[in-house]
């Protein structure tokens, strides 16, 4: 790195420096990206329902940076300006690997889309809660929810791949329309229309099975 670049090197310069084992670049890299690595580890562990302590996050954080420096993982990254997003994915996967390797815990075999939807009673319109008002209570409610889940899972497979991704990002991952549009590089209106159409279709399916 040239002396003029030392104050605030670009991600590309930093990565190049780290690949070439420049220790100053590495120090700046760690300072700059430790936060996103830490966030991604916590986020993945929480979303997958693992029970964890601060020591686990610290160990995984260290594993990630060892892979980047000693194992040459950084050289795999092609879109270097997107390093923060790439690191978030690497850190999330490292968290899963750590729990599998050190604690013999595998990630869940399934993600319950609708459990989460029913748990979140914050009234936000982006969940299926609006579509599936529960009329029963106690065990009946649970049975109704299970039936509804199965019916929705089956119905969601009827969508085209892109629509399925949009619907799952909204319903499973709770992402906003604008975020999905930005992520998949499609207009917000298309996302909103797809979600509205999908909800209508899912509702019809449920009504057809007398689940609504």
């Amino acid at each position: 790195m040239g002396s003029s670049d030392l104050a605030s090197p670009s991600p590309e310069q930093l990565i190049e420096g780290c690949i070439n084992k420049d220790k100053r670049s590495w120090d700046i890299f760690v300072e700059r990206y430790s936060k996103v690595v830490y966030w991604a580890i916590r986020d993945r562990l929480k979303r997958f329902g693992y029970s964890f302590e601060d020591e686990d996050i610290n160990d995984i954080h260290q594993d990630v940076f060892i892979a980047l420096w000693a194992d040459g993982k950084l050289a795999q990254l092609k879109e270097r300006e997107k390093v923060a997003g790439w690191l978030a994915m690497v850190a999330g996967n490292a968290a899963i690997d750590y729990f599998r390797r050190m604690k013999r815990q595998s990630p869940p075999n399934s993600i319950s889309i609708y459990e989460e939807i029913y748990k979140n009673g914050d009234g936000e319109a982006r969940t299926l809660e609006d579509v599936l008002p529960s009329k029963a209570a106690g065990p009946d409610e649970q049975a109704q929810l299970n039936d509804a889940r199965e019916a929705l899972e089956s119905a969601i497979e009827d969508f085209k791949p892109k629509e399925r991704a949009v619907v799952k990002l909204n319903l499973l991952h709770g992402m906003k329309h604008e975020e999905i549009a930005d992520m998949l590089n499609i207009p917000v209106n298309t996302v909103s229309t797809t979600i509205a159409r999908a909800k209508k279709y899912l509702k019809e399916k449920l009504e057809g099975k007398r689940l609504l």
Partner: protein
Amino acid sequence: MTKLHDATALKCPDEAALAAFLGGKLKEADARAIEGHIAGCPACLENVRAGYLGERLHDGGGLPASDTEIIRKAKGIAKMDPRKKNIRTNLWLAATAAAFLLSFIAPKFFAQFLVASLILGLKWVSESESVRTLIVAMDAKRRHENKEEEISKWRR
């Protein structure tokens, strides 16, 4: 329930390919292939979500600062030169073997050389990467067991 890993799905794209997808840098056909894959693979969809939000949160500057100790430890990784470390570890092993052999060559100092070989051997074990990994693994296991014990106590 949505399966996290679909046995019928094609091989999952790696993080670099998903980052390129998020950055809109892939050819149309490659982007469509990834789009089709993530629609049916919640594990990759989870990665794409993490990648997108990670980038946004980082750029937005809203993430809290990491603990200074874990930053210091991560910076310290660069100080580890694996070649030098291997040479040093092998030197301890060679010294252990030499002390052990000397205890037989010079029977007069048998006990002294044997003790020296024991000390050098312990030093070699403590420097060895595989042993350190084992210690870390056992420590994690111990913490996990302690936690389970606490939970069962709490249940009782």
